[in-house]
């Protein structure tokens, strides 16, 4: 790999991201803010949900936010670049292996994802009725999981971005994004699905499940969660799969 080229690509994406920082913050924070407010504050005061729900909700919403930040950072620019503006051609012609251009996208997406996670946690403290108690003692685990979640999110973004055509972006939200959110154990813990056995097994194909459960294991360990080793297996398998499929898809789109 040509390190100078790789760093220049990262510098370009960092500059573009910093110029777009306001829109990034809005895109990243508005949805979790409302989710936390309605589920963790309004419904809490209505006594529609009980006190322990906040500890289920916060890791779930954080995982969801990280997933979308990582995905969006890669998918949206890529769909436009590959399908319409062809802006990426100049980078494809830089003296570096074509795959590394996609790897750089994954690295930048991971950074977006981690930053969004760091923004959501303090937001949760503020938005929730009566605050929330988060365990920050397992910081090594939390950092490792955050990196892994970021990598899975952005490699999923690469996979989607490499295969989807610009005119199908709307469809992507209905067919990919919505099922990921609702079958991702965002608002309920995976263990509690024992009442619906088929669903408990089915959701295992959803990478968000391992992200949400992973954060539960790290920052709200008192909530029943999936055993940590299965979480790590789930995230690692997702990462390998999406990176592999995404890199292959990217190569196919830029080289005929």
């Amino acid at each position, binding site marked *: 790999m040509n390190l100078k080229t790789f760093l220049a690509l990262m510098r370009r994406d960092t500059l573009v991201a910093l110029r777009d920082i306001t829109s990034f913050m809005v895109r990243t924070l508005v949805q979790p803010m409302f989710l936390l407010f309605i589920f963790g504050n309004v419904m809490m005061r209505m006594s529609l949900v009980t006190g322990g729900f906040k500890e289920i909700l916060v890791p779930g919403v954080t995982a969801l936010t990280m997933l979308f930040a990582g995905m969006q950072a890669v998918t949206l620019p890529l769909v436009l670049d590959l399908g319409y503006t062809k*802006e990426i051609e100049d980078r494809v012609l*830089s003296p570096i292996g074509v795959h590394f251009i996609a790897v750089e996208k994954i690295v930048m997406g991971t950074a977006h994802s981690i930053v969004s996670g760091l923004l959501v946690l303090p937001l949760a403290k503020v938005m929730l009725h009566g605050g929330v108690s988060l365990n920050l003692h397992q910081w090594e685990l939390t950092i490792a999981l955050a990196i892994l979640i970021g990598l899975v999110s952005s490699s999923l973004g690469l996979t989607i971005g490499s295969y989807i055509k610009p005119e199908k972006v709307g469809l992507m939200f209905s067919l990919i994004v919505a099922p990921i959110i609702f079958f991702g154990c965002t608002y309920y813990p995976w263990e509690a699905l024992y009442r619906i056995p088929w669903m408990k097994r089915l959701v295992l194909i959803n990478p968000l499940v391992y992200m949400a459960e992973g954060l539960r294991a790290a920052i709200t360990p008192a909530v029943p969660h999936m055993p940590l080793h299965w979480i790590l297996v789930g995230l690692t398998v997702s990462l390998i799969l999406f990176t592999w499929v995404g890199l292959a898809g990217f190569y196919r789109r830029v080289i005929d």
Partner: protein
Amino acid sequence: MTPILEVRNLKKVFSINSGRTGKKSTAPKTVTAVDGISFTVNEGEIFGLLGPNGAGKTTTIGILTTRIIPTEGNGFVAGIDVAREPIRAKRLIAIVPQKMNLDHSLKVRENLTFHAAYFGLPKKVREERADELLEWLQLKDRANDRIDRLSGGMTQRIMIARALMHDPKILFLDEATVGLDPQSRLMIWEKIKDLNQKGLSIILTTHHMEEADKLCHRVAVMDHGKIIALDTPENLKKMIPGGEVIEMHLASSDGSLLATMEAIPEVQRVEPLDGMVRLYVAPGSKLLTRLVSIVEDHQCELLDVRVSHPTLENVFIFLTGKGLRE
């Protein structure tokens, strides 16, 4: 002369998805975009690929700039096989593509400096070179503009500047002046000549015959993925029989009129076309009055007459029987 580019038996077959027909796909459809072409370009040469849309020019450029993998054959840039060692090859080449692909997230000058950064050039060199090129292409006052505020001629010039940032050995220009106003086109022609005089080897594709004629040292005429002729513009034009072309636009014509024309010894070829007859005649044969009276004798109405010396367009028509822009 040393060849800077060598193309050997290059072939590219694309498979086409037949779209959603609802049925299971039958045998995959294929299109042969480039069909076994070979040529060499010498160092310091301006080499043109002339042909209509779909002739395989852009695919050829795509292969030589590492973006398309050839089905067969090889392309060598300064001795480096572009398909085998794309990263080494990319350092030596630069392309100004047909479709605008400047980075909209960056400003004009940043498009140049980042391009150089991707090639590992130190900051000082990047900055200096960007300034020089912006000055040379009369874009200095646009350095901090956003890309979407620029005219077609300006984006074209910026893409040329960007291509030159890493000091390539070969510059590929793919239809570099398509859609530009005559003034912008002339400016780009001047800049291409300038660059060539400084020693840069240039390969350009065009379906603009004047462009090929004025700029290129040698021209390869392409059609249906094949090179059908390759020579200097002067020699290509000598292929036209006679050396003078007379085009007569007629309201009507008949076989006996054409036969009478063909019978004239100085007329070397008669091409009946839709509403027109094209005659290739010996130069200086002063046939015009005679031809006009023959038309009158046959009671055909003459609408327009044009006498011209052969252009590369005539060469193309002569070789393929069709125009460059249909």
